[in-house]
C-alpha cells in the first residue's frame, strides 16, 4: 500500500530526514510543470522549485494539515515563482482583475463557417501545448492548477490568494484563448485546402 503524504511528513518530523526524498519524488514533476508555466524558463523554474522544496522542508513542523500537502506546497512554489517574477519586474500573477461578469456571460460565438476540427489529432494537442507555452503566466498558471493539478476553485484561491472572481475570469480567458487558437488554426488549414 502506498504511504500517504501525512505518514511521510510524520517520519520526517520525527527525525527521518531521508524520507523527505520520497515526498520530493512524488511532487516534483507536477510542481515543475507549474513552475515552468509560470516562469517560462526551465532552468529558472528548476532553481525556484529547489528553493521551494528546501523552504517547505524547513517549514514542515509548522504545516498544520488544514489543507493537503500538495496545496500547501504549491502555495510555496507559487510564492517563490512570484518573487522570481518580481525580480524580473514582470509579475502580474497577483494583480487582481477588474471583475467583469459580462465577460463570463459571453454567448456562444456563431461561426457560420466552422472548420472541421480533428479533436483527437496530434495537431490539436500540439496547438494547445504551443498556446499554453506562450500564454500570459497569470492565465497558464491557473489553467495548470485547474486541469493538471485538478485543484478546485477553493484550492486555487488558497494557493494564489486571489479572489474567486479573478480565478474564474482567468480560467475563462485562458480557455477562450485556447479555443480561438484552435479555431484559427483549423480555419487556416481549411482555407489552404480550399485554395
Amino acid at each position, binding site marked *: 500500500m502506498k504511504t500517504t503524504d501525512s505518514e511521510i511528513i510524520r517520519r520526517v518530523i520525527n527525525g527521518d530526514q531521508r524520507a523527505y526524498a520520497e515526498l520530493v519524488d512524488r511532487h516534483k514533476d507536477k510542481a*515543475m510543470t507549474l513552475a515552468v508555466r509560470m516562469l517560462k524558463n526551465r532552468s529558472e523554474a528548476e532553481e525556484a522549485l529547489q528553493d521551494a522544496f528546501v523552504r517547505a*522542508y524547513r517549514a514542515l513542523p509548522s504545516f498544520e494539515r488544514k489543507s493537503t500537502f500538495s496545496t500547501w506546497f504549491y502555495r510555496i512554489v507559487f510564492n517563490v515563482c512570484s518573487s522570481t517574477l518580481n525580480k524580473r519586474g514582470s509579475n502580474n500573477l497577483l494583480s487582481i482583475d477588474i471583475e467583469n461578469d459580462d465577460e463570463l456571460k459571453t*454567448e*456562444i460565438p456563431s461561426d457560420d463557417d466552422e472548420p472541421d476540427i480533428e479533436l483527437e489529432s496530434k495537431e490539436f494537442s500540439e496547438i494547445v501545448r504551443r498556446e499554453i507555452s506562450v500564454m500570459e503566466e497569470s492565465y497558464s498558471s491557473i489553467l495548470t492548477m485547474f*486541469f493538471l493539478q485538478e485543484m478546485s476553485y477553493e484550492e486555487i484561491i488558497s494557493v494564489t490568494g486571489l479572489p474567486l472572481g479573478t480565478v*474564474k475570469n482567468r480560467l475563462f480567458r485562458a480557455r477562450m484563448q485556447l*479555443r480561438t487558437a484552435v479555431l484559427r488554426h483549423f480555419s487556416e488549414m481549411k482555407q489552404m485546402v480550399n485554395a
Partner: protein
Amino acid sequence: MKNPTMQELMEYVDGTLQPLRYQEVEKLISTSPKLQNEILLLKSMRTAVQNDALVFPSKKFTSHVMKEIIPTQQESLWFQLVKNSSNMFAMVLVLSMIGIVLALGPAGTKNNSNLITKSIESYSSTYNSVVESFSHWTKPYAQPIDHIAKSSSGKFLYLGLAAFFIFMIVDGVLNKKYFHARIKH
C-alpha cells in the same frame, strides 16, 4: 429555456454547474448539434491540457534538494573513511618510521659514513644516554616486558594494542565528522 453561455458550458464540462441549470443545459445540448460540437471542443481542450507532457526536472534533482537539506547525507562511513585515509596513512607512516628507528636503535649505526647515518649516529648517542639515564628506573620492569614481548601471546597482545589504537584513531576521525554534522543540523 435560456441558451447557455460559454461560462455555463465550461462549468457543465467541469461538472460545477448548479444541478437545476445542469439539467436544463443537458436538454439543450441534446437537441443542438452546435452545442454538442462546442462541448466536444471544450472536453478535448481539457484532455489536451491534462495530457500535455509534464515538464520533468533534471535526473539529480532530488539528490540536489536532499544535499541542501542534509549536507553530509551522502557521506557514508566508508566514504568518510576513504576521505580521511590520507591523514591516516600519514600517521601510520610516521608511527612506522618511529618504530623502525626505535627498533634499530644503536645497532643500526655501525659502519656509517654518509649524512643520513651520521644523523642516525647522533640520534643513537642521544638514545643511549636517555636509556642509560632511565635504566635504573626501568631495570626492574625490563626483564618481564622483554619476556612478554618475546612470547607468542605477547606478540598477540602488542598486535591487539596496535589494532586498538588504530581503531581509536579511525573511530575518532569518523565520529567527530558524524556528530559534528548532526549537531550542525
